[in-house]
């Protein structure tokens, strides 16, 4: 099959359906960014290492640079654009803001989605578990401690 032959598919992102035409080789990350126009999901390495492209697929944090869009039809996808309710920030966003959990902001969407996805499944993690999970992603600016602080605070807010 010609690599440039496009296929039609429908992706559900943040509760909205996007009808897109993409090459089968196109990654989910590129599709979300270019075809759905949701550029909040960032690409830091395209090797699945940095986690900047982390989104939620059926509630699971996934590296969207390591998936193809054609794999994702029928999945409920959530990206950083779906976290806030208008001007009301999600508790995780609010906690990152209050605790200086970001500097340049490039890794932030990935950390937010990783932490939200994890806490939705495990609302009350130990310090050790939290550190383990957040070690999935890379940040170059913050030295991580304000990210840890933010996620701890958000965990409390999300439980209540």
């Amino acid at each position, binding site marked *: 099959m010609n690599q440039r032959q496009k296929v039609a598919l429908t992706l559900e992102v943040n509760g909205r359906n996007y009808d897109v035409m993409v090459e089968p080789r196109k990654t989910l990350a590129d599709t979300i960014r270019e075809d759905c126009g949701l550029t*909040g999901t960032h690409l830091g390495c395209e090797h699945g290492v940095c986690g900047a492209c982390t989104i939620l697929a059926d509630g699971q944090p996934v590296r969207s640079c390591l998936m193809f869009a054609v794999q994702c039809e029928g999945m409920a996808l959530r990206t950083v654009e779906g976290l806030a309710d208008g001007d009301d920030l999600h508790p995780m966003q609010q906690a990152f803001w209050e605790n200086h959990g970001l500097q*340049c902001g490039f890794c*932030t969407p990935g950390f937010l989605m990783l932490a939200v996805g994890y806490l939705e499944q495990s609302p009350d993690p130990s310090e050790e578990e939290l550190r383990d999970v957040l070690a999935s992603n890379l940040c170059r600016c913050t030295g991580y401690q304000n990210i840890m602080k933010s996620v701890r605070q958000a965990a409390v807010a999300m439980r209540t």
Partner: protein
Amino acid sequence: MKTWVGRSLPRSEDPPLLKGAGTYVADLTAGAAFLRFVRSPVPSGTISGIEVPDGETVFTGADLHDVGPLRPLLHRSDYVPIDQPILARDRVRFVGEPVAAVVADSMAIAEDLADQVFVDIDPLDPVIGIPAALDPGAPLVHDVAAENTMVDTRYDNGGVEKAFADAHETVEFQLRSRRQSAMPLEARGSVARYDPRTERITLFASIQAPHIVRTIIADLVGMPESQLRVVAPDVGGGFGQKYCVAVEDIVTVWVARRLRRTVSWIEDRRENFMSAFHSRDHRYTITGAFDKEGRLLAVDADLLCDVGAYSCYPVTAGVEPLMAMADLPGPYDFQAYRVRSRGITTNTCPMAPYRGVSRPVITLAMERLMDLASQRLGIDSVEIRRRNLITEFPYKSATGLTFDEGSYVESLERAVEMIDVDAFRRRQREARDEGRHLGIGFSVFSERTGYGTPAFAARDMDVTPGFENVDLVMDPSGFVEARIGASPHGQGLSTSMAQLLGDELGIDPRSVRIVHGDTDRTPYGWGTFASRSMVISGGAAKLAAIRLRKKLAAIAAEELEAAPEDITFDAGKASVVGTDIGIEISTLARIAYHASQKLPQGSSPGLLSQASYDPAGTFSNACHVAIVEVDVETGAVELERFLVIEDAGVLINPMIADGQVHGGVTQGIAGALYEEVIYDEYGNILTTSLLDYLPPTVAEIPVIEVAHLETISDATITGAKGLGEGGTIGAPAAVINAISDALRPYGVEVNEMPATPSRIRELIRASERASR
């Protein structure tokens, strides 16, 4: 009135970044053609031909024959100017050097096309590493650079021979720092947007210094500077790597003009490791002379910096060797200093500044010297520092730098107290009895910040950065826009600058908008680097605010029938001091525009004030302490505690200041323990993914404890000293000294970074072999 300065306000930058509404350069490619570079797969060779697929858009060095070369200049006889072609023409000089550019309608197709371009290269023997480059029989990377030396500078303050003759103890050691990458999480990239109506190009680029990028690209491409607008949108970290000009950005602009369409180049991670700038590939020989009491009498140093294949623009390949030479003495009081510092060219990726430039390595050198002398002389490692740190200010260093007020000894004493060193030593002894190896390491250092034109002029740079301009406008509704030449990219400058201006103008920081990173909207300035923005751009903003306030006071004085000098500004009001008579500042603004007949004579309508600031520079200082545990079986190092006593003068926003320290220290720890760009002997780069390069995650980084001292210095008009780089400068020495302290029973001294498990094991094995 200090209402806002000193408060940890949440950052105004954050809401869009949190909502996914940040706009980075890769978010601006809609409608653009995609450009992909074909890069040299060999480190050295002669191009004999380039085969390109039929009917496709491919540009080579021949197409760009009238563009460039890039020729970064220092006006000094110990620097050899080197030309860098924008696309390689006859020779290639490092793996990853751009040779051709292909253009297609999607990134994927551009990548396919790039794979179909065949570059025939007759390979030459590459020069990899400093020893190979200095071998008398070594091939030359550039014919004009004899002995593969681009910079060869010497300095002798006198008295060194005598000091060594008089010395009670001489300490000599070799130090090595392996090559690092600044590794911003967003790689580089640019979008050159072509406007068919005006034929103007807007270059959106992930850069730190838009104005100089505009000047050099317009020069090289041969277009009037007014036809080029350069914008740094949200930038995903720079750390110096995005300060120097990327040849790729020049190509993007040239291709957009040639094709008359919008063209984008988005660097991938592998390219970033191969072709974006590296840093800190150094080898030093340090010799120190001490008297019986442990006082440092003299230092003799031979500093070698691998600067890679080309010189970076605008700071040149001199940036590392010249800074290493000038700043090596640090905060230690000695005058007899002799140094030779060289920049050696090799067939590897070029160097550029990376957070701290040479200072993480020279600080490691001085702090190792102190610890080695402490061992040799049997003087406690804290005590030997006490005896040598500068205590009287201003202090003129051996290389002529003037240190303003600082708290070198005080920061050390505070750290000793907070750590409880005596208690640690007890714990260390107990642990050793159990076969566990704990160690403590100190690092006391200065961070030269906010240096303006005079400091850069001392390097004889053709392009001399330094000043900052700020245009401050209050609009008729009383809102303020500060247009600045600095170009922040994560440092929170918009928030802290608004706090500063809030206090100067007596208004809420939320009424202040900072405009940066756009050559159409901001006055000429040098961007954000070298821990300078709050000092220099902040200083210019303060001066502009004082002028604006004067004008507002004159209007208020007329309205309130008072003397202008009796008008104070606070909480959005101009009031007559000691009375409850006042007027809203927004009303004054309205008058300045809509009732300008009321303005005092000689006053122009509107509210615009401009100022520039160009200070000589100031010194922040800090003491870092690391406590580590080393597993002698595996060589693994665990950080148990990391303490920072930081003195950066007045803190505008303490939360942001702490964030800079956390991030800086983390990069310093990374350099001390993990990160290393590796080339094999054939010149292939082996570390081209984040998995190979080993940037630390949250699992490797301990809680970083930060305490502040606030020394007030008149070298900075805002009272703020810079602190962007200090964390990275000080941390490696603390960590490496701590490892050496932990391994004292083995007599092991670590003089290399990163101290990886295999290197630590090798040192232990060597020591065990020696003692058998």
